[in-house]
């Protein structure tokens, strides 16, 4: 007996229901990632292994090109700068000898008071910047070291001697870093000379001019002046104390006459970051 084939129409779901289901999925994921980290782990591990090698390769090539063009540009500037610097060297060497005398005095005094060194030597690990936030709104970048190199969320990131930002997300072989100039970044800091506390807030409006905003500086006796060094404060719960952020560029009294605000010139060149140092010590060690 021949089998009768019943031709069934293939069931096609209308696109609006697909949209609805996917939207619910997205909202569900948002809620889940806000409260727990169930979804985060497997997805980030898989995507890390797929995408990070590519990003490393491409950014290496791109870096080579930008470096060459930068070098040409810099050469001209450097020659002009050289002359100016030569004059400065003479000036500074005189100053230096004065400072050396002060330093001898300081070491003696420190020994007297049995003070520890001002900065503890933090263990650091170098990492390369391999990608940046695809949008134009935030300043977040990707580095090529992850949890397999001992990197954890909330570790501080430096370049040279200045603060770059903080690790916000970690995969096995990658991590994202939120810079201090990012619009969503807030850092508790202090003035090095007077220990007055302030808050350093990234601002997209100021990003172009290369400065960061600071606010809530209490300085009743007007001792903080333009050019003062700003370092991370000892009361911050995520940033290690004493890392330089930058120097005060502009300072104004707020309309409440109690606090001051203004801008800071960071010492890190955020446009040309390619190698950063991750400090492998957390401010709050896990129990």
């Amino acid at each position, binding site marked *: 007996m021949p089998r009768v084939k019943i031709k069934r129409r293939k069931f096609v779901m209308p*696109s*609006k229901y697909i949209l609805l289901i996917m939207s619910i999925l997205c909202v569900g994921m948002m809620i889940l990632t806000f409260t727990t980290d169930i979804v985060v782990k497997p997805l980030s591990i898989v995507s890390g292994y797929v995408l990070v090698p590519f990003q490393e390769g*491409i950014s290496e090539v791109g870096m080579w*090109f930008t470096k060459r063009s930068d070098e040409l540009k810099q050469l001209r500037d450097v020659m002009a700068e050289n002359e100016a610097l030569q004059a400065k060297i003479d000036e500074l060497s005189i100053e230096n000898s004065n400072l050396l005398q002060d330093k001898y005095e300081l070491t003696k005094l420190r020994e007297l008071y049995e003070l520890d060194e001002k900065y503890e030597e933090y263990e650091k690990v170098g990492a390369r910047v391999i990608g940046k936030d*695809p949008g134009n709104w935030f300043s977040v970048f990707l580095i090529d070291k992850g949890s397999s190199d001992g990197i954890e969320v909330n570790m501080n990131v430096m370049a040279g001697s200045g603060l770059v930002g903080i690790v916000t997300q970690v995969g096995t072989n990658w991590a*994202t870093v939120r810079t201090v100039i990012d*619009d969503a970044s807030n850092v508790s800091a202090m003035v090095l000379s007077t220990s007055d506390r302030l808050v350093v807030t990234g601002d997209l409006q100021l990003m172009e001019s290369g400065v960061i905003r600071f606010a809530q500086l209490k300085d009743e006796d007007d001792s903080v002046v333009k050019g003062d060094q700003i370092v991370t404060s000892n009361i911050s719960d995520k940033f290690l104390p004493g890392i330089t952020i930058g120097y005060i560029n502009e300072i104004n009294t707020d309309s409440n006459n109690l606090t001051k605000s203004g801008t800071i010139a960071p010492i890190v060149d955020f446009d040309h970051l390619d190698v950063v140092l991750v400090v492998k010590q957390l401010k709050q060690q896990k129990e």
Partner: protein
Amino acid sequence: MKRKIVVFFMILICFLLQCTVFQALSLGGIVPNLLIMLTSSFGFMKGRKEGIFVGFISGMLIDVFYSSFYGGYALIYMVIGYANGYFHRIFYPEDVKLPIIFITVSDFIYCIITYVFLFLLRTRIHFFFYLKSVIFPELVYTVVITVIFYRLILLIHRKLEESEKRSASKFV
């Protein structure tokens, strides 16, 4: 299936380019939005479902690497892809002007949504500043890139259509 794989790799390539090469080619710190270009063009070239698929993958990639929670960008991109699918009916491959308008409007809407949810809600109220220094430059740059890349996307789309037709006619 073949289409899905090809499209997936196109999204990957665009994402990687946007995060690496275009960051180096940025003009005044502004990068073009390749993923919106892709989502929007596949939306009106193929229809709403394709828009949802491309938008979801694109948004999810951004979420996984650069967002603090998952699903946000995926939702925005998905809705934009879906909305573009409504214009599938008036899409003609020969016409280049209309797609450029769609992509521009999509990018603009995307920028506005990001501004409202990620900046306005944090009391960053100087809308015209953001319009002038982020949204507008991004639009212009994206349009320029679209003019260059759109034909390539269209070419890939046509090749995919052809191979789909061929394999469909085999079974008849």
